């Protein structure tokens, strides 16, 4: 066994432990300290138990194992009713979870976790256990000792006055697989002293405090009652190591061989009551989950997406070539191509969906954030989330967490008032924070809404003036709200450690824009603020409209195109001689000529002969002048930075059906800087 390299299982263990910790946190947050749900307590215990089992298995993660061990003992005492759950315990458990997480991260980085933090949390947990021991039931006192479980088990056994002779469980006609499960169950009920399987039967000698009826109840999940015979008799003289080897056989494929003995043979907490749900043992729980999903590296998925993208391009190329063929003669070929197109599209869609993850992944971390911040700031806040099942590209999901955390912090700190202020304003003292996600066309809209005081127009204007940002008194509200996105802007009266340093909102906006999205703010004094983040569903595929300027083809992102028209002479006005605006239904839109922005020769110079595409970027609208509209495509986005660099006015590139490269226009850049000439930027590069 020593020859087996356990380190190859580390990653699996880390991933599983991560999941279990997240699960534990969620359960702890849901837990009602006054009336804890026994099922939830069990689930929390199981999570702690699984982590401990895994950590102890490897032998290299002692601190993690020890911390979880202490946590597990406490949880065990609570769920057995030996110890009353208090609200402050939940806080300590949450803190323990954080420590466990950091220990896990440290081990993952092949480092030793922080000794001081470890000592402290262990002391806190021991303290808790001792406190309880002072006025709790006798067996719980043992849990204060970080020693082996057996010490906890023994006094309990003698206290309940069970016969000193071990319990012998004999089961007839049992398959090898069932025998394994039964052995595991026995391990959960007490200490298995010896076991042997002969001619289809299984005999187990165990030291347990469970009553015969309890053991029966557990076994009946696997075998019928008449197959079962339970007595008290001495175990045959056998080496204790036998037990270990028996368990090796029972070990799951993931768990390394000599490990299960400490975890599975442990007399878990089942001493008090039979637990039907124990049919799913703690160790089995993560394994069950894995049967329905597989863990795959992101790069593998990305590779598939790239290949499928190539396939779609090749297919488009074939279709284009085949379109010149006589449909009567090449009937079968064309039919085949049509089918290929359908299949390629379906394949592309399903591959894309692999990358999609539910927003739950993001939302699930906020109850904790809100809980911690609210208690820190003495506010009462209720968090509501909607659209947890809404799916978003994995790369976006990961990048949205920081901006959202920032917005939530802002809402809690500046938005929602303290309970007394809220009562004074005739509001419910409990503030409400709502987070929602929903699909909206080709976009996902994520909203953070609070029912707090709203943005303070006067204060923003005053602050802007202090910082020398050009403002006017009669700016519309929307423009005033945009000011808070200016770098270094903060209206907080005092800087707290939560927010107020003013490095926030501009970073939030930049992050969102980097993801191809934008942020909108709406606010009403006294009623609250809503921040709306609009993001594309995925970065990998884009609905585009191809347009022609001179001999060049560009792609406009379709979700920014609102309409297109051929301008007439009387719709075009000049401003300051050089600039032109387009008058459309009472609105004057700046006219951006593509051929000027991108220095295209031999393009249509006469606007009345060209096509104006009305584009919408954030709240700005402008008319983009192109020669022709070519068509609408779904294009695979390829970034230019991989081998080249960022190009002004261009967000990315794509490969067209004929294999040529077309550039995707950066609508935001065009909207922001339609008067600025790109060429000036290029000149600085040249010189």
């Amino acid at each position: 066994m020593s020859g087996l390299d356990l380190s190859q299982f580390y990653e699996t263990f880390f991933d599983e432990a991560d999941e279990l910790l997240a699960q534990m946190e969620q359960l702890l947050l849901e837990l009602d300290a006054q009336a804890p749900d026994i099922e939830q307590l069990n689930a929390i215990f199981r999570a702690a138990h699984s982590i401990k089992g895994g950590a102890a298995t490897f032998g290299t993660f002692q601190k993690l194992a020890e911390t979880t061990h202490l946590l597990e003992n406490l949880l065990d005492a609570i769920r057995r009713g030996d110890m009353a759950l208090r609200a402050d315990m939940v806080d300590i458990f949450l803190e323990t979870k954080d420590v466990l997480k950091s220990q896990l991260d440290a081990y993952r980085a092949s480092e030793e976790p922080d000794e001081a933090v470890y000592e402290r949390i262990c002391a806190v947990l021991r303290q808790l256990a001792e406190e309880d021991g002072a006025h709790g039931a006798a067996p719980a006192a043992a849990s204060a000792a970080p020693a082996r479980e057996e010490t906890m088990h023994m006094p309990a056994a003698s206290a309940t006055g069970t016969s000193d002779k071990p319990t012998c469980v004999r089961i007839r006609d049992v398959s090898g697989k069932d025998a394994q499960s039964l052995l595991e169950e026995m391990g959960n009920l007490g200490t298995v002293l010896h076991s042997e399987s002969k001619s289809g039967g299984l005999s187990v000698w165990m030291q347990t405090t469970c009553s015969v009826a309890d053991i029966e109840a557990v076994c009946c999940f696997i075998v019928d009652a008449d197959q079962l015979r339970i007595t008290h008799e001495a175990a045959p003289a056998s080496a204790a190591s036998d037990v270990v080897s028996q368990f090796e056989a029972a070990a799951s494929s993931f768990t390394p061989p000599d490990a299960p003995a400490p975890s599975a043979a442990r007399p878990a907490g089942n001493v008090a009551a039979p637990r039907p749900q124990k049919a799913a043992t703690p160790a089995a729980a993560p394994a069950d989950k894995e049967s329905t999903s597989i863990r795959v590296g992101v790069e593998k998925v990305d590779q598939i997406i790239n290949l499928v993208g190539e396939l779609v391009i090749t297919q488009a190329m074939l279709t284009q070539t085949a379109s010149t063929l006589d449909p009567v003669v090449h009937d079968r070929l064309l039919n085949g191509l049509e089918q290929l197109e359908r299949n390629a599209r379906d394949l592309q869609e399903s591959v894309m969906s692999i990358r999609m993850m539910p927003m739950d992944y993001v939302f699930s971390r906020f109850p904790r954030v809100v809980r911690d911040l609210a208690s820190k700031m003495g506010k009462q806040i209720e968090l509501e989330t909607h659209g947890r099942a809404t799916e978003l590209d994995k790369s976006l999901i990961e990048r949205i967490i920081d901006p959202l955390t920032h917005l939530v912090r802002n809402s809690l700190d500046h938005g929602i008032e303290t309970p007394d202020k809220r009562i004074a304003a005739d509001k419910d003292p409990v503030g409400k924070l709502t987070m929602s996600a929903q699909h909206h066309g080709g976009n996902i809209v994520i909203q953070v809404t609070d029912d707090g005081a709203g943005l303070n127009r006067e204060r923003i204007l005053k602050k802007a003036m202090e910082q020398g940002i050009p403002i006017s008194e009669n700016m519309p509200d929307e423009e005033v709200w945009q000011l808070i996105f200016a770098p270094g802007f903060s209206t907080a009266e005092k800087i707290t450690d939560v927010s107020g340093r003013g490095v926030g909102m501009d970073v939030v906006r930049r992050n969102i824009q980097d993801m191809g999205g934008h942020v909108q703010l709406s606010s009403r004094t006294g009623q609250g603020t809503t921040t709306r983040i609009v993001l594309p569903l995925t970065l990998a595929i884009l609905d585009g409209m191809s347009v022609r300027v001179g001999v060049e083809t560009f792609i406009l992102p379709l979700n920014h195109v609102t309409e297109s028209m051929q301008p007439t002479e009387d719709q075009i006005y000049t401003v300051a001689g050089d600039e032109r605006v387009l008058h459309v239904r009472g609105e004057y839109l700046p006219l951006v000529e593509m051929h000027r922005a991108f220095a295209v020769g031999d393009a249509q110079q006469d606007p009345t002969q060209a096509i104006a595409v009305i584009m919408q970027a954030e709240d700005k609208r402008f008319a983009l002048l192109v020669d022709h509209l070519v068509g609408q495509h779904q294009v695979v986005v390829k970034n230019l930075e991989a081998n080249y660099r960022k190009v002004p006015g261009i967000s990315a590139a794509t490969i067209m059906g004929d294999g040529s490269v077309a550039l995707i226009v950066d609508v935001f850049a065009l909207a922001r800087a339609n008067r600025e000439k790109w060429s000036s930027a290029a000149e600085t590069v040249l010189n």
Partner: protein
Amino acid sequence: MAASPRTDTTRVEDTGHEFLVFALGEEEYGIDILKVQEIRGYDADVVTRIANVPPFIKGVTNLRGIIVPIVDLRIKFNLGKVEYTEQTVVIILNLSNRVVGIVVDGVSDVLMLNAAQIRPAPEFGQTLSTEYLTGLGTIDDRMLILVDIEKMMTSDEMALVEKVAA
């Protein structure tokens, strides 16, 4: 055109480096063969122009699904005559995880040069900074200008790579 340069007649010696020799106008240049990924014919139709970039950047092209920038070294080195003929080829380079294509007038040889055949380069003018030269190579009566292509292509003046601080 996509013939592997390694199969060329190579004078194998114990020491020294292999260089891919290409022509720019009348001049012969050599670059480290290990930086070369492949050689392709130049097809202006599949190179997409990028607006507002230095003229030596011809644009980007699709190399089996990868977007690759194409640099015309003849424009960069101020060689008067820039023609696109049958002989014009693109050398696809693989430089520190980036793929870049360079347009040259033709590829002639893969040669092995040992240290004795490489002379330090004298100071030149502005066009080709000595910084990017590894030396001048001599084979019979031919002179090869040996270029540290990686250093040159990733330099600021090529504007191919995003400047870190920019």
